């Protein structure tokens, strides 16, 4: 918090334009309470998803009242997730600012994708793409719980749209998916064919250079032969 917003709006002349633009974007997002709007939406989505979880063995007991904070390079504010379990009901509270977190992960969305692709956590930490502060077990438990969630989207959709529209919608979705997959496979096969067969027929730059060189050599040899013949003719004519 600042004593006054006006002070913060006056950039120091020594600051770089990048710092000023970051400061302005932070002020803009804070003024419009964008971080709070974002956490509100994220919290709503997470808790809706939790309510739809069919896996009864999912247990949050071990991380009740624990907080995991995610600092993503793409966002100007952190996201903190706190678990609150009362009897059998669990909710996640999402905040933008937490003074003490059980585990803080500093990374980027791209690195998270790498993690999903099973790239080693240690390797990413060594490459300075990911930093973990606090109890890493908390992060692992959060990840395990997310993976254990089982949500039957089809039944949930049917509850809102009705059985027939849901069936039709999913059929249409499946068709589109199949068509996209088939197109993808065809493109893949075509590229394979091109690489295996067609690519061999295409003259490469090195082949053209070699051909040019051979043509030049032949031309030189013809010139030499022609010179020898001329010389022979002149010798015969002298005799």
């Amino acid at each position, binding site marked *: *918090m600042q004593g006054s917003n006006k002070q913060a709006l006056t950039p120091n002349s020594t600051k770089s334009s990048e710092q000023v633009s970051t400061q302005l974007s932070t002020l803009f997002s804070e003024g419009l*309470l964008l971080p709070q709007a974002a956490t509100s939406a994220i919290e709503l989505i997470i808790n809706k998803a939790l309510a739809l979880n069919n896996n009864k063995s999912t247990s949050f007991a071990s991380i009740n009242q624990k907080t995991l904070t995610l600092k993503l390079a793409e966002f100007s504010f952190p996201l903190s997730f706190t678990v609150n379990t009362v009897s059998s009901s669990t909710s996640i509270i999402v905040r933008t600012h937490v003074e003490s977190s059980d585990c803080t992960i500093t990374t980027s969305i791209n690195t998270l994708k790498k993690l999903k692709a099973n790239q080693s956590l240690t390797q990413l930490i060594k490459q300075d793409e990911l930093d973990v502060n606090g109890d890493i077990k908390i992060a692992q438990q959060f990840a395990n719980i997310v993976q254990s969630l089982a949500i039957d989207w089809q039944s949930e959709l049917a509850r809102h749209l009705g059985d027939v529209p849901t069936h039709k919608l999913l059929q249409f979705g499946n068709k589109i998916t199949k068509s996209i997959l088939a197109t993808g496979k065809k493109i893949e096969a075509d590229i394979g064919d091109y690489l295996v067969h067609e690519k061999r027929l295409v003259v490469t730059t090195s082949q053209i250079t070699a051909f040019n060189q051979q043509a030049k050599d032949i031309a030189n040899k013809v010139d030499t032969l022609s010179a020898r013949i001329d010389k022979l003719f002149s010798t015969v004519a002298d005799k």
Partner: protein
Amino acid sequence: MSSTDQNSQISDLPTSPKTADTDTSSDNLAESKSTTHFGYKTIEKDDKISMVAGVFHSVAKQYDVMNDLMSFGIHRLWKRFTIDASGVRPGNKVLDLAGGTGDLTAKFSQLVGREGKVVLADINSSMLNVGRDKLRDKGLVQNIEYVQANAEYLPFEENTFDIVTIAFGLRNVTDKDKALRSIYSVLKPGGRLLVLEFSKPEHELLNKAYDFYSFNILPKMGELVAKDGESYKYLAESIRMHPDQETLKVMMENAGFEQTTFKNLTGGVVALHKGYKF
């Protein structure tokens, strides 16, 4: 749950001394030893509590709906910002003063956990009843206490709370300086006070638009939805009579708070003041 049952569980309001206290002069100059403001009207200090009570008894049931309508839902984000700034952690004791229908209490209750406690205090029994019903419907029962209390005479021991919040309540308090001193007393050393309140917009254009909205549209909305245009006229007037950002900061410092800061939200329509007791 019956209304009688509900009332039986609310702690009784301690008897407030009816003496007219001398103001520390931080409040508006037009106030004297025995008078104060009720919107734009100057009234006897002793009358303010009952007049404000009348407003809130009248609007209690429609309070949440009207809040959403009047602020276009933004009050939820202002409250979220307050929670973010509170630094609340499991085990904390929190006093949500003038807590009304319990929006802040609901979040605090989830964040302090079983080891912590949240006290929802309001001078108005109707607001407290609506708040308690709402929180119980949400299943929040384990760590919340309800106390009907006047902010000027808080019925708690000294050094009790880690955090005290007062959201959209301070402007309705008769003697704000006394309330701030009372809050200071019940805070633990290291504890913090968060005051979320309407304030003065930073830009003149926004100020004019805000004035037009407050005095022309707001009372009509109140009339249509809550069938009580007068209460919402009072709301607009009380906001204008409330001390601006800098004045409230000074009042907090006079009450003993340290490291006092404020943050303007939505262009200064609302400001969040924060101060610590050390």
